[in-house]
């Protein structure tokens, strides 16, 4: 046991000596959560638009002001002709253009239904859609007010946003970030650090020591487990105190599930290092085989239900998908173990399978 702790201590030394890696390890979750919390948003504000106002009267000016005042748009170009609008599109200066006909204002006052022409840059279809919708609703409320009988509204609506009243993006990013960081630290770091010892030949040195191979491996992964737990704690705390992301469910259950996921990521890391002897290969397998699927198919950034069916089925074998469901449920819905036992069981199953395969693989290589 004493020898074992000597080993663990050596691993800690390795990590703490390497100030750069350490800085990145703790800086990364910090920087990412701040970015996601403050900078990354799908909501569109201040989109640059161009206006070609051939009408130039009270109505068109008022409508333009209304659009500017909405906060969604910024007037970047007050064009004189169609060519200048086209050029602005090509240079990427504007996302949308509004064109008023010459008699727009006159026709409007006479109730002659003038047409308002909108051109959207649909190279980004989502933004185009959203912007057109914004403009339409601004125009609609504008016409509404201009009519005498403006009380017409046959159907009212009322809605409630459950779990996330203010529709904050961080609610989704905090669980997603924890998943990715855990994957990165536990799986990628372990696989690289084990293959590094193999590359340098120090692995053999340790294996000829009186310690059992599996204790060598366990000693290697303990520091990374610690780092992972600290990292997830940082993200949770930042999420809670900086961005008000709640933890509705039980903190103990949450930590237990996090540790379960760390174990599954660690066994994946060991599995990778048992297949290869080269750091570069380990890195690339982790990148392509672990991180990419985790980012894409865990539902973190891209909603799963929009993907083709084969991809949705494929996502089922990615532990991170289940972990994301678990952690979202506990944090945001306040679920208890009775609600998420199936996902937990699946995650535990994956962990067991990965651990078994890597044990078998390791034995085979040693013989």
């Amino acid at each position, binding site marked *: 046991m004493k020898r074992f702790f000597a080993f663990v201590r050596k691993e800690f030394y390795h990590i703490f000596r*390497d100030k*750069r890696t350490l800085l990145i390890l703790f800086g990364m979750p910090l920087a990412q959560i701040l*970015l996601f919390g*403050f900078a*990354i948003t*799908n909501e569109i*504000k201040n*989109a*640059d638009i161009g206006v070609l106002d051939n009408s130039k009267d009270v109505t068109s000016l008022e409508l333009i002001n209304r659009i500017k005042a909405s906060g969604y748009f910024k007037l970047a170009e007050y064009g004189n002709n169609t060519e200048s609008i086209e*050029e602005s*599109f*090509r*240079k990427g200066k504007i996302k949308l253009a509004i064109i008023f006909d010459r008699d727009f204002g006159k026709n*409007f*006052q*006479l*109730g002659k*239904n*003038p047409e*308002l*022409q909108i051109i*959207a840059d*649909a*190279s*980004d*279809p*989502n*933004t185009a859609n*959203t912007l057109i*919708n914004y403009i339409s609703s601004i125009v609609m409320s504008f*016409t509404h007010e201009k*009519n*005498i009988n403006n009380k*017409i*509204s*046959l*159907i009212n*609506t009322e*809605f409630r*946003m*459950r*779990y996330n009243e203010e*529709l904050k*993006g961080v*609610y*989704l990013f905090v669980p997603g970030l924890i998943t990715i960081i855990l994957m*990165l630290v536990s799986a990628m770091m372990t696989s690289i650090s084990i293959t*590094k010892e193999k*590359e340098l030949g120090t692995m053999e040195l340790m294996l000829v020591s009186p310690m059992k191979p599996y204790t060598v491996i366990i000693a290697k992964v303990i520091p990374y487990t610690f780092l992972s737990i600290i990292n997830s704690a940082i993200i949770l705390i930042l999420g809670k105190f900086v961005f008000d992301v709640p933890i509705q469910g039980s903190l103990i259950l949450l930590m237990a599930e996090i540790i379960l996921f760390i174990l599954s990521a660690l066994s994946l890391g060991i599995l990778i290092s048992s297949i290869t002897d080269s*750091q*570069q290969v380990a890195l*690339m397998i982790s990148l*392509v085989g672990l991180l*990419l699927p985790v980012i894409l198919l865990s539902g973190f950034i*891209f*909603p799963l239900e*929009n993907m083709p069916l084969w991809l949705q089925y494929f996502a089922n074998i990615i532990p991170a998908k289940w972990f994301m469901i678990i952690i979202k449920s506990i944090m*945001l*819905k306040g*679920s208890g173990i009775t609600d998420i036992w199936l996902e937990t069981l699946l995650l535990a199953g994956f962990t067991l399978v990965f651990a078994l395969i890597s044990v078998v693989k390791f034995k085979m290589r040693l013989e």
Partner: protein
Amino acid sequence: MKNILFIIEKEFKQIFRNKAMLPIIFVMPIIQLFLLSNAATFDIRNLKIGINDNDKSTLSKELFRKIASSNYFVLTSIPKSISEAETELDIGKIDIYLEIPPNFEKNIINKNIDNDNTIYMLFNAIDGTKAGLGNFYLQSIIGDFSGSIIKYNKSIYFSPEEMIVFKNIGITYSNWYNPELNYNNFMLPGILVLLVTMIGTFLSAMNIVREKEIGTIDQINVTPIKKYEFIIGKLMPLLIIGTFELIFGMFIAVIIFKVPLVGNGLVILSFGIIYLIACLGLGFLISTTTDNQQQAMFISWFILVIFILLSGLFTPIESMPEWVKYITIFNPVKYFIEVVRLVMLKGSGFGDIGRHFLIISVFAISLNSLAVMRYKKTNI
């Protein structure tokens, strides 16, 4: 200068002999293009909705049908009450619950416009974007629905005087550059950039530091080779591979995924080469400041994640706060993404993106000069 050729030759041999690198260089792009193009979509469809129609009249059924048959929603449940809907929301059976009040039709026909006629909606808002868009889609379906009722029954709702001066604006809109609103046309060019960036930066970051780790760097450093010769010799093979990847990726995007190439592919290519030189310079810079591959990998990962998140690839830069927009000025990835999209979809030429060329050249020159400066043959 002849020395450079020997380094280039050696690098090529080493790359093509490395069994691990080959699949990464040739298979990863394909996987990424296929996987990302299928997975990376914000196109929000198939939201799971549960509708509770308490009226069961002609009009309510009409609205029910309109929502259920829309592309955006899939009817997965017909809950009987809010509490039932809440449970279904908890277990993820539905994303949205919509309740049509009793007397819905009667209230509309009788012009009984008060709060009684309220459609109630409940959203699972963990994914804020999804909930927001869902709400938006529903509101516009309901808006259209009531609009058409008014339109076809003007005489019920307006007096003849009102009808004469009824002011309205018709909106016609056209979607330029991507009339079918094909999401792949938007994402694939960006993914192309992602690919080139990752290959360029990772390969170069790992390269010099690997020689440090196995010790061959000293053997190079005692030779009379010049620092810039060494860096250029290392850069060329990776540049050729990266350029190949870019061309290959563009072929896949245009031929298999039918992304339009409105502009001139050579504009993208020439920009891409300068961009790659910048990426390689960044990688070498990382390489010269780190001691081992693990460090190099981590730092590149860290920098790339930030660059990519702030590049406008997934989320539009316009929506970022002002201070973040200033930061993105220093993000080379952003410029290439803009250029690829501008050229492929809008047909912009050299004249339109001259500024981009200038900026990326500054990046390429300064990153590589820094790398050459930081690389020391004699350590302190």
